[in-house]
């Protein structure tokens, strides 16, 4: 089983908590980056060879948000732990179940981590400055018919209670439900209103 994170953050997913010894492939890309090389080819090569049960653990000196986004779009769940200031460990595992589409790109917003959790898209917007989290949610709603699970639902991690988002959701016949509210942030489920 993977080591528990040192910094309080989102709950570790079941597939990682229940990981067996030998199920994980480790790849430390810090030396590759230190040598001035791009480790992407090496990572994609490892990903290509992974079985659905395998978990890929990547150690990097920063949070590789674009990589997480890329692999999320290819159907890989991910979970990141910040071990120290310049040491991140990110776990990837192929999502079991339906084939997942590529993640949409929002070029006018800063990068943010995305993941699939049990077939539902999860966006971590905690590092975005307001009002970008609200904009990311509204942009997601615009394209959600292609990406959302459970009738378009998706979840977002936020730092702040999205009070300015609520009226916008109402106007679009969507709603928000806070499903986790702790020091590490709020996990909010965004879903379409059910027809009356």
């Amino acid at each position, binding site marked *: 089983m993977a080591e528990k994170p040192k910094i309080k953050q989102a709950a570790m997913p079941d597939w990682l908590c229940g990981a067996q010894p030998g199920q994980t492939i480790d790849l430390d890309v810090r030396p590759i980056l230190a040598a001035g090389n791009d480790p992407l080819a090496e990572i994609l090569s490892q990903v290509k060879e992974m079985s659905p049960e395998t978990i890929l653990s990547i150690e990097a000196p920063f949070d590789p948000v674009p990589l997480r986004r890329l692999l999320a779009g290819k159907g890989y769940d991910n979970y990141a732990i910040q071990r120290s200031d310049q040491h991140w460990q990110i776990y990837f595992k192929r999502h079991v179940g339906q084939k997942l589409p590529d993640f949409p790109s929002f070029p*006018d*917003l800063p990068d943010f981590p995305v993941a699939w959790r049990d077939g539902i898209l999860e966006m971590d917007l905690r590092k975005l*400055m*307001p*009002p*970008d989290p*609200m*904009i990311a949610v*509204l*942009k997601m709603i*615009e394209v959600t018919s292609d990406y959302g699970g459970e009738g378009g639902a998706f979840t977002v991690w936020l*730092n*702040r*209670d*999205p*009070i*300015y988002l*609520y*009226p*916008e959701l*109402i106007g679009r016949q969507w*709603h*928000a*439900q*806070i499903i986790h*509210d702790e020091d590490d942030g*709020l996990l909010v489920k965004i*879903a379409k*209103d059910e027809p009356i």
Partner: protein
Amino acid sequence: MIGANFLSGAGGRLLPPSIPFRYFTAGVIFYAVFWAALFVSADELTSYTMGGGPILSVIHMATLGVLSMTVIGASLQLLSVATRKAFKGFWLCRLVSWFYIPGIFLLTYAMYISWYSGMLMGAGLTGGGLLIFCGLIIHNIWGVTGMAAIMAHCWAAMLSLMGLLSLGILLIVNAEHGFMPDHFALATSHFILAVFGFMTLLAMGFSYILIPMFALSPGPPEGLGRWSVGCNITGLIGILIGVNIYLDWLVIAGIGVIFFGVGLYIYAMSRVYKARMRKRLGLPFILIRISWVILLISAIWGAVGAAGYWPDRGHTLFAAAAIIGWLLTFLMGVLQRIIPFLASMHSSGHGGVPLLTSAMADERLLTVNVLGHLGGLSAVILGIMFDWDMVIRAGAVMGFAGAMGLLIYLMYIIRHLASFRGEKA
């Protein structure tokens, strides 16, 4: 789902409606009183040169009564949401109003009739309220990480507030006892700190959240905000030093740096505007866009004045453009969006779903406000340019009509909020 969870947690970060709405109501009342007082004193406007009397009172009705009043209400509401730090002592938020609102009434009345003791007492009450407000804001933004550009605007605005307060009280005492060698330089510094330090910096800082939020657009790059506020602070310091040690070149250089900072701000806002998801932005954005144009014109006109090329009444034109054209116009645009939004959030209807504000008040009243304000602004500018008292008076009538439109709209909203809370209780 919406009903039970719609405001889950949000209520804790939204202030009780009585707090922001008391400032908004007082601000809109002062907005109407400002136009009325301008109507009465129109013949003194074009000859005014920073002394006491009715025009000094009219200026403070706009700056303290309308601008600062509304900024206090909006800041208390917005900052607690943006920083995730709720104001714990709501009584302190209320206490500000108990000092500040009667303080401004007394101060502006005393200024109008040149009553020295009244001015001093009014300034003491107003200053007391502003100091409590300043303490609340500093406590709220202290240690906040992220949003560096917005926080820098807030810090600089609070420092400006402390500076302008000190200078304001000094000016009143000096008007009676005359111990300072250059009253004009002090008054100019006070004006610059108030209009371009405190109010402009807060307006710009909050723009980086408010404008993208209203327009549904990604925020502008953080770097633009940082450079802009850096230029504005540097320019302000340059101007203040230049004014007080009589270095015209430093004043002009300061205005030049501020012009660059303002340009970056406008560029950032135009990016937001272009990337917006909400295509129809309505009346508030007509006001906001006009205010940006006038902000740029004010900066250019300021530089013309510093270079010594202002014609007669150039300084009055500058003050009118900065206070009515830029700040009041911008603020009316923001108020037209914030009032309906907060009212909607605080009056969840059946099942907890927020009501549309069109169900609470007639939105044509907002059109009256826009037309009245813009008509009033245009006529006052024209009247100053050509020294036509009657045109200034006509502008004041239009402005007053616009203010009454907003006031009636606000009264409808408040009556709705009160009846909703009564039903809820």
